[in-house]
């Protein structure tokens, strides 16, 4: 048995698209893959036990916290949390707050997860608003792992971010990229409608000024939307409104490309042959840019970490979300962010 410090991840096992069993399978795999990560499964015990019964796991590192309530995907978060104070996502957050677990993972209702965290966790001193971060595959590799993903934040948690919020997001993204992507000196950029410092709304211009002179992070200025897939910056900072629109557009573009490829496949024998010839390369690109290796999107800014896994996450993504959460906890992400914030210990 490993002597490493044990890290416990609370999994909200309910409400995901593929059901509790898929989340349990992911958490079970985590106990086999790693020597020190414990899984605290929060949800309906019958469903959890049924799923656990069929998968290999290490019961020494699995605990179950039963609750019959959970928030479904279609429910309005605020209403659901009021009506279900013992919902699995709320209990998971409380268990993290009480020190029973170190971080939380959920593949359920995103709004409910963010709201549960907001009601339960505290913001890191110096952070006014939390940010939802996500990774996006780019054309360049970065960090020790030659990671092709850049980090974009915020993509929906804070719609009306101020200049100071954007600065905090830059700090949070830098700390996260350093720990998770093992990128010692990640480049940070503000997303704007031009690369010039004066471009963009006042809050972006003001944030640019503040970031320009800031020690402890490598601010490279403004970038445009086209620079995101190019991988010009390792960390892309924007407010939640812009980030969400941008993310959805990028997702839409890739879906359209796939549709066009399907169309081409059906349309002409020559195009079909060309696609078949490219299939090896396409598979390789899919492997490199597989979002499941990141597991999910972190909610940054709270003193405790919440990884929001995609609603349609399969077991592998859940396992990786647990690993990412444990890595962030093991490297004390919250403390790293606090130290980097202006006037709080950055040098």
């Amino acid at each position, binding site marked *: 048995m490993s*002597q490493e410090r044990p890290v416990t991840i609370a999994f909200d096992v309910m409400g995901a698209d593929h059901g509790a069993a898929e989340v349990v399978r992911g958490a079970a795999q985590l106990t086999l893959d790693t020597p020190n990560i414990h899984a605290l499964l929060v949800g309906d015990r019958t469903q959890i036990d049924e799923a656990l*019964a069929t998968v290999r796991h290490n019961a020494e590192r699995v605990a179950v916290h*039963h609750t019959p309530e959970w928030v479904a995907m279609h429910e309005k978060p605020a209403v659901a949390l009021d009506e279900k104070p013992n919902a699995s996502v709320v209990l998971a957050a409380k268990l993290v707050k009480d020190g029973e677990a170190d971080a939380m993972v959920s593949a359920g209702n995103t709004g409910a997860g963010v709201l549960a965290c907001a009601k339960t966790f505290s913001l890191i001193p110096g952070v006014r608003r939390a940010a939802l971060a996500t990774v996006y595959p780019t054309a360049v590799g970065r960090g020790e792992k030659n990671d092709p993903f850049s980090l974009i934040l915020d993509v929906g948690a804070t719609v009306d971010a101020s200049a100071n919020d954007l600065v905090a997001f830059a700090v949070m993204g830098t700390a996260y990229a350093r720990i998770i992507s093992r990128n010692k000196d990640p480049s940070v950029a503000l997303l704007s409608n031009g690369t010039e410092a004066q471009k963009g709304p006042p809050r972006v211009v003001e944030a640019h000024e503040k970031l320009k002179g800031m020690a402890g992070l490598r601010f490279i200025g403004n970038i445009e939307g086209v620079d995101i897939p190019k991988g010009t910056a390792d960390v892309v900072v924007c407010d939640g409104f812009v980030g969400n629109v941008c993310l959805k557009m990028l997702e839409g573009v890739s879906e359209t490309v796939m549709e066009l490829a399907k169309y081409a496949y059906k349309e002409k024998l020559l195009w079909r042959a060309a696609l078949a010839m490219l299939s090896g390369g396409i598979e390789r690109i899919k492997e490199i840019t597989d979002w499941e290796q990141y597991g999910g999107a972190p909610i940054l800014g709270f003193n405790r970490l919440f990884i929001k896994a995609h609603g349609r996450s399969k077991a592998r993504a859940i396992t990786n979300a647990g690993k990412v959460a444990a890595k962030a906890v093991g490297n004390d992400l919250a403390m790293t962010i606090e130290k980097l914030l202006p006037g709080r210990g950055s040098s």
Partner: protein
Amino acid sequence: MTAEPKPHPLRIYRWDLDKTYLQTEFDTFRQLVRTALQKAHEKKAVPGAAALIRELKAAGDTRLCIVSGSPTQMRKVLMEKLKLDGVEFDELVLKDNLRNLVRGRFKALRGQVGYKLPVLLESRARAPVDAEEVLFGDDAEADAFVYSLYADMVARRVSEPVVYRVLEAAEVYSDDIERVIKVWEAIPQADPVRRIFINLDRLTPPAYFAKYGPRVVPIFNYFQAALVLMGDKHLTAPQVLKVMIDLVQTAGYNLLTLSNSFQDLLRRGLPMREVAEALVEALQGPGAMFQVVRPVPDIIAAFTKRVASLGAAPPPPKARDIDYLSLLDDARPRTHKSRRRS
């Protein structure tokens, strides 16, 4: 003045060695050679196994019988290892594979049923009729199958035609089949086997063994076995705590792993509430040793939380008759099973 507790009948604890008592790897030829060449002090016991045996042996009239598939040539080194661990045994039966090889009985080299079943029955024939038994095996081979069949044969819950069909399916040689039937007929009917513990060396999901009924208890560690045996009145609370301390001191177990192990048994419907109460009482008594785990209130709180977080107690697993003919795949040597699965 309290009444003297009624002495229990002889208790026989039957243990397998590899992957049950010893941490052995022999999945590859290299591992097999390494295991064969290991000296006694290089062999590692499964955490808590020696401590559990010591506590069981200390609890009155008991007998420790070891039946292992290790070759007879390893007797000396295995005896030395057991002595190093402070384990005193009454029987140690090893497999004479050299003889099997010389006689060209290649199926017997890997076969488990044809080797263990007659040995178990012969040992039973020498035991008092009222002797109780607890058996320890693992999930790497056919232990759950062989032990369950042995228990049901002694209890006459399984018919002779079924036994014949099982032994034939397990590729047992005809003279060994005759040996099994002969010794079986000589054993007086009894129902001695109380528990069959299966050490989950391969982390097989516990539900896989549900087909063998609640007598078979898959365990992730020997703390779990100690807890169940406490519920079965084979161990006292202080003895269970000694096994727990051994796991903490020698194998890096901590409050989390121990309380999770405890909750795992609760979730499987094993009656643990009385056990928990007795443990709390024992922890609150004198015994500075417990501090090596954590302060006593922390230990109690950790276990209490695991109970509370489950809500209502689940129903105990239901007893069932075992349909051995539907489980023949479990009786075959592992290479055959792998082939069939592939």
